[in-house]
């Protein structure tokens, strides 16, 4: 069920310019008939589409706009064509229903990186369906692989390569989604060229491993075109591709390239399709129109040049069916007229992948939702990276700049509410779920972000410049935090000793570093914010031990308590708020626990003993602070245990 494409049928004739002399026009006619024959042959052999390739060298001018090279009536070329095409499609096991498609393609021969760069953003090029480059020296090839915005890099293997293929460059190009083209007509046409070509092409095939490689004919005459299976076998046998990769190179790779290229051509920013449908005075049923259009949307149709499908041909409808889908972006207007503006130009905006976007959305709510999602994400990832905390203010700022007319306060308030509610939810989780330690860090962070965000809001409400200032301030804050973390290990302060332990622990296990970092950062740089959060935690923990008598819960709890002590030391005001009765009850529970497990007395006896720990103990401790609240934390623990237990078992075996 694969459709085969031949993306390179040479299109050499010139419609205008040199056609004044009779000799040139005769030549044009010959070239045109050769092209027609090639297209007919491809259709007959069961290909589902061809691209007419115009080779080009020099500077692209406006006159080089794509000028309908498409052949309107392939059917008139031969009466038995439809039957032959149907037979070959059946033998190739490709469906007969898709129509035979014709695309336009331009291949730019480039000899300097500057030319590559200038070609990337040329609106004339986008009148073609596919844009390919043919680098002529090393610099152009490097630039084409790394930066160019074309669809395909076509390499002429028939001559000695003017540059060296380099593996890193090829990999970069593949990562960027560029395709490499290998043409097989030279392989067939000339004996001497074969020798030249195979070595280089094989190198490329080996390096790409068949990924993003496209095989096309570039046939100068009809006799050089071969059937898809023959081409596949040729590539498999001579270039050493695997069978399925070779088949993909002539079918699915071509299709994906076409889809991508056409999306680039017909959609604004590859997602939004702009259509000028009706004049202003006429009303239309937008919903009905869009739905029908979207349902019938064909990702590899160029909008024109599609022959009717073979089923239709079989029903003997020689007149070309009118293509129902209206033309996409009108490029003449875009390039000639004013710059492309969504708000001015669009009568309707339809999104290709989102049906709900058909109805013009309430911008406020959508932006709001988007922001909320962003913030929620940053919360749920919580401790993973402190750097990410920079992002929420930024992301909020961007839409606000765009929507100037909207009441800014409303958005800010709603977002602040969202944050608060999130915060509250997390707090609730703290009281109910057993894994309090993990979640409490979340709560800390959420409070952290709330305050930071609100700061930004305030700044923004004052004036625009202020907001930017605030943003930079936030940046500074975070960088300061990071600095503090760096200096934390060297700090002689009594409050830091515990953190030091953590820090050294975390060095052993990368997964835990982030969590510890965030903790230290909070303690260092924003004591007043964190303190409030810790205060709430504190209250949670007083109720906690009653629920969880387990060892680990207690360990974690002790840890928290110690942290609380630290906080208390640093800011006296907060300490006064903490009710003393709670601590007493904690002490009692501790003693109970000690009695239950006498072996661990030394570890749990008090805050001071925390500073002296065995290695095993440290590891247990650090496992209480993973980078994020993992749902599989128990799973990881079991792995740890196994690793520890393994050498023991081996020793027993000896």
């Amino acid at each position: 069920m694969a459709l085969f494409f031949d993306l390179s049928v040479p299109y050499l004739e010139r419609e205008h310019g040199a056609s004044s002399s009779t000799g040139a026009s005769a030549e044009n006619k010959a070239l045109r008939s050769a092209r027609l024959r090639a297209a007919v042959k491809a259709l007959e052999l069961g290909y589902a589409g061809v691209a007419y390739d115009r080779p080009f060298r020099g500077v692209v001018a406006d006159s080089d706009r794509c000028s309908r090279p498409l052949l309107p009536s392939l059917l008139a070329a031969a009466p038995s064509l439809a039957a032959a095409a149907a037979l070959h499609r059946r033998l190739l096991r490709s469906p007969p229903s898709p129509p035979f498609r014709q695309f336009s393609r331009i291949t730019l021969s480039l000899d300097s990186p500057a030319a590559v760069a200038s070609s990337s953003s040329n609106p004339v090029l986008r009148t073609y369906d596919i844009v390919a480059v043919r680098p002529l020296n090393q610099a152009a090839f490097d630039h084409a692989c790394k930066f160019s915005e074309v669809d395909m890099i076509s390499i002429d293997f028939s001559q000695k390569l003017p540059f060296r293929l380099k593996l890193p460059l090829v990999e970069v190009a593949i990562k960027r989604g560029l395709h490499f083209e290998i043409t097989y007509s030279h392989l067939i046409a000339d004996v001497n060229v074969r020798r030249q070509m195979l070595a280089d092409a094989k190198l490329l095939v080996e390096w790409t491993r068949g990924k993003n490689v496209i095989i096309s004919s570039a046939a100068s005459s009809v006799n050089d075109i071969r059937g898809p299976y023959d081409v596949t076998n040729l590539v498999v046998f001579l270039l050493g591709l695997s069978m399925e990769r070779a088949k993909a190179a002539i079918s699915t790779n071509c299709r994906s390239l076409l889809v991508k290229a056409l999306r680039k051509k017909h959609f604004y920013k590859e997602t939004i399709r702009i259509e000028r449908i009706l004049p202003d005075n006429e009303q239309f049923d937008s919903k009905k129109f869009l739905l029908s259009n979207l349902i019938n949307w064909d990702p590899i149709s160029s909008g024109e040049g599609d022959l009717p499908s073979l089923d239709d041909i079989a029903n003997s409808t020689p007149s070309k069916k009118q293509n129902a889908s209206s033309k996409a972006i009108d490029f003449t207007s875009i390039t000639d007229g004013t710059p492309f503006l969504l708000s001015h130009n669009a009568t309707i905006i339809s999104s290709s992948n989102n049906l709900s976007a058909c109805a013009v959305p309430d911008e406020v709510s959508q932006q709001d939702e988007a922001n909320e999602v962003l913030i929620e994400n940053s919360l749920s990832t919580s401790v993973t990276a402190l750097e990410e905390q920079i992002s929420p203010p930024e992301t909020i700022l961007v839409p606000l700049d765009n929507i100037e007319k909207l009441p800014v306060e409303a958005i800010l308030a709603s977002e602040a509410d969202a944050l608060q509610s999130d915060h509250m939810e997390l707090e609730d989780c703290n009281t109910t779920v057993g894994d309090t330690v993990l979640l409490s860090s979340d709560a800390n962070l959420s409070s952290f972000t709330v305050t930071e965000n609100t700061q930004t809001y305030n700044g923004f409400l004052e004036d625009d410049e202020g907001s930017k200032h605030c943003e930079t301030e936030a940046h500074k804050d975070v960088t300061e935090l990071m600095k503090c973390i760096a200096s934390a290990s060297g700090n002689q302060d009594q409050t830091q000793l515990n953190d030091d332990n953590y820090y050294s622990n975390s060095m052993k296990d990368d997964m835990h570093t982030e969590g510890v970092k965030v903790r230290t950062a909070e303690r260092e740089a924003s004591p007043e914010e964190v303190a409030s959060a810790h205060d709430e935690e504190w209250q949670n923990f007083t109720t906690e031990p009653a629920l969880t008598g387990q060892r680990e819960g207690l360990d974690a709890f002790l840890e928290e308590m110690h942290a609380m002590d630290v906080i208390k030391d640093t800011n006296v005001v907060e300490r006064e708020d903490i009710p003393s009765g709670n601590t007493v009850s904690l002490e009692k529970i501790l003693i109970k626990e000690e009695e239950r497990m006498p072996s661990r007395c030394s570890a749990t006896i008090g805050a001071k003993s925390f500073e002296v720990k065995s290695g095993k103990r440290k590891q247990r401790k650090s496992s209480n602070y993973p980078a994020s609240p993992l749902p599989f934390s128990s799973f990881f623990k079991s792995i740890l245990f196994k690793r520890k237990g393994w050498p023991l078992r081996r020793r027993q075996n000896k």
Partner: protein
Amino acid sequence: MVQFKNRYMVMEVFVDANRELGDNDPIILSAFNVSKAIKDSIQLNFGECGLAVSLGSFQVKYVNPTTKICIIRTSREDHQKVWSAITMVRSIGKCPVSFNLLDLSGSIKACKRAALMCDEAKFEQYRLAAGDLVTPEITDVVKSCFEKIKALEK
């Protein structure tokens, strides 16, 4: 249990696609000239040894000069090589041709079935293209060819 196996390829030949429609064929395909063209191509592309290795089981079993369908037998080990060589055939004598694979099968039975199907379909196309030019003699020749396919290796 290493058994010698064959591959049967049903191929169609496009004779000089550049000629105008309705012209007479510049050459008449026969088992001899098809096999000679393929052998030349093998020798050109894969050398004496390549030719010698693949000659063991290489045979053009059947050629239909009207519909231009032929059946080629090779050993399974070399069938990719022979197939590539066939793909790279450019001319028979002075006349440019190109081969196209229609079916590849491992047994003569499956091959006969596919060949018959393709042959009939191609003859239909031939009749569509030629129109009134299809004389009873041509039809008789084609019918006898169909019988020849059915009689292969019986």
